[in-house]
């Protein structure tokens, strides 16, 4: 018997309908993007070719979808089986996040009808970081589908397939650890070739991949805490605080490692002075650092870590910090030259909100209809 059960209950809740409305509005602009060109909907321009559709929907969105990745480390590499109950919901959130990140990538592609070109080996440019990101994310989405498939296969009672999967899952789980390591670090590597356009405080050149993957793992643990807390509050269920507390501690240690490495690199590159320059970039850096460090204060002691609300705030702070780190590097402190500026247009924002809404709607539907949540969590 499966340890997991569908939540059941009404799908069309007020919350669901709220998100459905936002999604419906965004559909209009999505169609407009295809009929009239991206310029009709978005404010991206010659100096800022990547706006929130790339930076949020793809880059930050996949970072937020690293729950499955982070848990895979914990459960399968460090062999902490007790975190198992958290795995499926995390995988669902990861699948939703990555699938929509993939959609966002194609939606943002200027010549989307030729997207298959990136899959044709004779087109591959092995120097390109973008190639790595594209192929790796595509592959990872397939891996996530396979990793999540037990939930679906259980519902439809495909015991034969489940047995096969059981024997081979380890390989896909291994891929599920390797692939995000590769592409999440590459998302950082993409900044290297942008050169001077990336603010010096974020342009750590050769260290981009390392810092990027660290933030991805931190965001992964934080999103697990976040969605587990929200699921408990929203759906009711067992209190996973003890598990989440350890995850919180791990992410804080990772965050400290990240900050140590980051400051060491900046010092080695002679950039510490820029932190105190008093300009917009230094302000954003300081805010980022505060958001990273805050959790260390909020959940400093084991007692504090047992407070669900403190854990949630700590997780949210690190999610904001991770998101802000990517926003800053790619957009907020990005300067392609005098005269260029970018702020998303209202339709552009609506599209992003629509994608997020669809993601949440999908999560709600699946969690209620497929065995995702752990049995003992439910009353």
């Amino acid at each position, binding site marked *: 018997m499966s340890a997991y059960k569908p939540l059941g209950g009404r799908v069309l809740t007020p919350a669901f309908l709220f998100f459905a409305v936002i999604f419906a509005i965004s559909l209009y602009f999505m169609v407009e993007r295809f009929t009239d060109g991206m310029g009709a909907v978005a404010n991206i321009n010659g100096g800022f070719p990547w706006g929130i559709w790339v930076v949020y929907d793809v880059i930050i969105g996949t970072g937020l979808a690293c729950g499955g990745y982070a848990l895979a480390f914990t459960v399968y590499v460090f062999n902490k089986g007790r975190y198992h109950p958290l795995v499926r919901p995390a995988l669902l959130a990861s699948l939703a996040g990555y699938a929509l990140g993939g959609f966002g990538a194609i939606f943002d592609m200027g010549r989307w009808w030729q997207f298959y070109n990136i899959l044709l080996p004779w087109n591959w440019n092995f120097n390109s970081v973008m190639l790595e990101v594209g192929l790796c994310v595509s592959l990872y989405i397939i891996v996530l589908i396979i990793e999540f498939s037990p939930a679906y296969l259980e519902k439809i009672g495909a015991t034969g397939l489940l047995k096969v999967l059981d024997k081979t899952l380890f390989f896909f789980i291994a891929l599920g650890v390797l692939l995000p390591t590769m592409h999440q670090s590459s998302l950082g590597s993409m900044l290297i070739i942008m050169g001077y356009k990336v603010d010096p405080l974020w342009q750590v050149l050769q260290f981009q991949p390392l810092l990027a993957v660290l933030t991805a793992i931190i965001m992964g643990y934080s999103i697990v805490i976040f969605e587990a807390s929200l699921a408990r509050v929203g759906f009711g269920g067992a*209190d996973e605080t003890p598990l989440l507390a350890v995850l919180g501690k791990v992410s804080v240690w990772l965050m400290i490692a990240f900050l140590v490495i980051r400051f060491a690199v900046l010092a080695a590159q002679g950039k510490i002075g820029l932190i105190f320059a008093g300009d917009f970039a230094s302000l954003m850096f300081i805010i980022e650092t505060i958001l990273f460090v805050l959790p260390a204060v909020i959940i400093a002691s084991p007692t504090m870590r047992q407070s669900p609300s403190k854990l949630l705030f700590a997780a949210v702070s690190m999610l904001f910090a991770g998101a802000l780190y990517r926003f800053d590097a790619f957009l907020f402190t990005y300067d392609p030259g005098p005269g260029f500026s970018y702020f998303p247009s209202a339709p552009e924002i609506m599209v992003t909100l629509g994608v997020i809404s669809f993601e949440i709607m999908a999560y709600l539907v699946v969690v209620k209809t497929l065995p995702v949540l752990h049995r003992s969590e439910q009353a």
Partner: protein
Amino acid sequence: MADHDIDTGDFDFSFIEKRLGVTRRTFLKFCTGVAASLGLSTQAAVAMAKTIADPKPKKRPPVIWLHGQECTGPSESLLRSEQPSLEHLILDLISLDYHQTLDTGAGHKVEEMKKKSMEENKGKYLLVVEGAIPIKDGGIYCKIAGETMLHATKEAAEHAAAIVAFGSCASWGGVQSASPNPTEARGAQAVLPGKTVVNIPGCPPNPANFLGTVLYFVTFGKLPPLDEQNRPKWAYGRLIHENCYRRPHFDAGRFATEFGDEGHRKGWCLYKLGCKGPETYNNCPSLEFNNVGGGVWPVGVGHPCFGCSEQGIGFNKPMFALADVKTHTPPNAFPEIADREQKQGISPTAAAIGGAAAGVAVGAALMAGKKASGGSDSSGSQDA
């Protein structure tokens, strides 16, 4: 210009009408035209008209007109003006006491009259210099009636009320001053240090430039505003490039590259053929020449301007050498370094939506946090 009648009070124009053989209306049209090219109002035109048409003028100012190294082009160009019978007008306006081409007399008599007029009208006569003054070897390379032009100019300038250098030769030396300038030909100002000489350059100069300046002087008793080379600003204040009607072709990059090629036949810009319009100050494209209708000026007939009125350009820079483009004035416009093809900045709607979304996210987290700490057992309720 509207053909309505200009109000001149009860001034009697019959004298000038008979003298010039034109109607009052034609005469007033002419004066308004001159005033307009000077940048002056209709009232100024009326003042000019009344001054010219006064049957009992104050004693007509005498004019001594000297010719040096020249071809008489300026005088000829003045005489080619047709409306209305300019030579009559000038000759009536002033008392032309000495003009080597127009004098009916000749020989010593004429020279004596010159000396007499200069003596009688000391400090009151207008000196017009046409032609350059050579200074090499004491100025012997140009002599009139046994006297060097150098001496004659200095003598005449001594007691002149105003001095006008008419034509490029008198303004800065003209053709004979072209390298190597064997006679050391100079403009009038160069041999008259300490005196103010008004320059009306051009080869030939547009007669209207001379006429307008003189009329201004006679009407208002002073000279029009001059630039740093003492040229009347109203005529020489703009580059030919600024008023040229082939300018749109320059701005769009359409150039004739050879005489007779497609661009040349289509009337495109002559810059590549060496047009000096971009570095020559004059009003040729506006006034044109000979009063015979549009397009009668060098560029208009398909030949690049060679900068005849501009010192250092005319007779100095090769005819087909590229000109320096001196200034860039509207309608020519360039994007600046930081100009981009970009949409507007932050729209209020976008800011509002973005802010609201961020607010909802933070609010939801806060609410969830509160609820989370509210109880650690399952409540059994489902809000989502």
